[in-house]
């Protein structure tokens, strides 16, 4: 697609003529596949400048994690100092592994539990909908809007009474309730995309429920299922408020390791950056893998 007028390159150009009054000009047909227009070189430079500005703290975190402590804490910053992996070794020797295992257990187990609960629910809300199914959808959504801090006190008291403080499965239950509305909304929107005609055709052909689910619904909904799992994983992995208040030593997750890390005196910046990079890595990978579907999860399925 080529840019035909100068003004169309610059969306902030002053409005010099009224749109409707201009004479109509016949133009060559353009490719309709990519709806977005081409930006000029200035556009690319501005976009990249802002992108790099936004990404700079992440880049700085990774770069600092690869510097020796003495190079990390200099002013002006020593960008071109030699690289080393010793900070990562140091972070592991301080026992981050236990915290990573707890985070992985809480995130993966809660994601699986979410799927076990959300997939049948989404089926009952899209393919064979119950009556008043939109009301049920909005009930689930409304629970997501209640601030968890307001539930912390009773949850703390109940968990304490049940002897489940400092237990990773307490986090599993809480993360499941935190992610269930998102998963139901996402899965509902994915299952609603399964064409009704195909389901009817399968019924006519005498396919049972199991065959319909495994051979027709599953292949169409699989990418959605993957995206939903990744998003639930991201939110559980990053959760801090419940983790810091309900765990002490055995069940603490990765963010608790980071917070505890600071108390040590002396130079710690490079090691801190190494730990921060390490704990963020699984979510960065999951997020990049799910980035096309990320917006659907973040908007609770409202935006596709």
């Amino acid at each position, binding site marked *: *697609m080529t840019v035909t007028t100068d003004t*169309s390159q610059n*969306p*902030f*150009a002053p*409005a*010099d003529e009224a*749109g409707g009054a201009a004479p*109509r000009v016949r133009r060559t047909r353009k490719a309709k596949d990519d*709806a*977005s*227009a*081409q*930006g000029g070189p200035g556009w*690319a430079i501005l976009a*990249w400048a802002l*992108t790099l500005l*936004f*990404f700079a703290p992440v880049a700085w975190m990774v770069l600092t994690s690869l510097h020796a402590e003495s190079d990390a804490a200099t*002013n*002006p*910053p020593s960008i071109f100092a030699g690289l080393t992996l010793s900070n990562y070794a140091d972070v592991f020797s301080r026992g981050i592994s236990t915290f990573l295992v707890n985070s992985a257990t809480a995130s993966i187990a809660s994601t699986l539990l979410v799927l076990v*609960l959300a997939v049948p*629910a989404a089926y*009952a809300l899209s393919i064979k909908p*119950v*009556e008043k199914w939109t009301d*049920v959808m909005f009930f*689930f959504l*409304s*629970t997501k809007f209640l*601030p*968890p801090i307001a539930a*912390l*006190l*009773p*949850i703390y008291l*109940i968990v304490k*009474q049940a002897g489940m403080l400092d237990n990773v499965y307490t986090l599993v239950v*809480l993360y499941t*309730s935190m992610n*269930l509305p998102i998963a139901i909304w996402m899965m509902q*929107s994915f299952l609603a995309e399964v064409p009704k005609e195909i389901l009817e055709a399968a019924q006519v052909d005498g396919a049972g429920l199991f065959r319909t689910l495994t051979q027709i619904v599953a292949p169409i909904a699989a990418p959605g299922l993957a995206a939903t799992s990744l998003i639930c994983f991201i939110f559980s992995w*990053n959760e*801090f408020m419940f983790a810091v*208040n309900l765990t002490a030593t055995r069940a603490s997750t990765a*963010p608790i390791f*980071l*917070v505890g890390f600071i108390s040590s005196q002396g130079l*710690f910046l490079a090691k*801190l950056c190494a730990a*921060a990079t390490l704990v*963020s890595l699984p*979510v960065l990978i999951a997020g*990049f893998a799910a980035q096309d579907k*990320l*917006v659907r999860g973040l*908007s*609770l399925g409202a*935006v596709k």
Partner: protein
Amino acid sequence: MSAQTVTAPPPSRRGEPTMSTRERWRRRGPLLPALIFTIVVTQIPFLLTIAISTLNWNVLQPGTKNFLGMGHYTSFAWLGNYGIVFTDDRLRTAVINTIELTALVVVISAVLGLVLAVLLDRRFPGRGVARTLLIAPFLVMPVASALLWKHALYNPDYGLLNGVLNWVYHLFGAQGPTKDWVSGYPMSAVVVALVWQWTPFMMLILLAGLQSQPGDVLEAAKIDRADGFQTFRFITLPHLRQYIELSALLGSIYVLQTFDAIYTITQGGPGAATTNLPYEIYLTMFRKYDYGQAAAAGVVVVIGSIIVATFALRTISSLFTEEGNR
């Protein structure tokens, strides 16, 4: 069906046969585990919060009355805790800080997100890579990003911010500033870190909105020789309106709940300068051990959230029915 009108029989009744009770329960079946789980785990705690908010219950002064075996409170306070919540200086400061923090973060990140979304809506070399890099701030663990800002960027001695300023000042033969950003501008320090984290969220929703614009309308605008600004002002912005609303409302609900950044960057200080309601509730619960007041403050946060959420639900509902009609 007994009474049929001649002109317009209700289509829903005639269109599909009414379901048998058996079929209804068969359809409800798969939904029930999720529904029961959600009701038990999310609704019961809130009912308990409301109950506790009416009690004089401070762990440091244990009473004699048993609250469901979970501890001992002194007496009924009825609405006394709410009186304290609305008159206590710390809590009032927390309410104001929460509003200030939420409004600043949501507005600034929505504007920046819109700028980035508009930029990414055009093709340029490496657009896909740029988009991926821009999502990163949202994915970095919030605690990690708070620590990163506090120690690697804001630190007065070796933080990147003063480091870069120093480097620039050196070019002009001057000595750079040694500003302590966190203690000098605590609220701004938190806001900037949160804006950095939330801008990608806003950008993703707004970019999806931009890309859902019908191509033929834009084409028509181009044929009518509308320039870029006119197209943006009169076609794109009205179309984007509900996406802007959605991103701002969802953003408000999430930013209202901010705990990690306050806990990590300023711990609510200096004094109570950056203490927001979630952090104040946490302090009331685990530092003052005043369960009654903490619960009352919690109920106030819930009411605030419900007000924002009512608007959010309306926006989502209209998008939802629109998407459904496509």
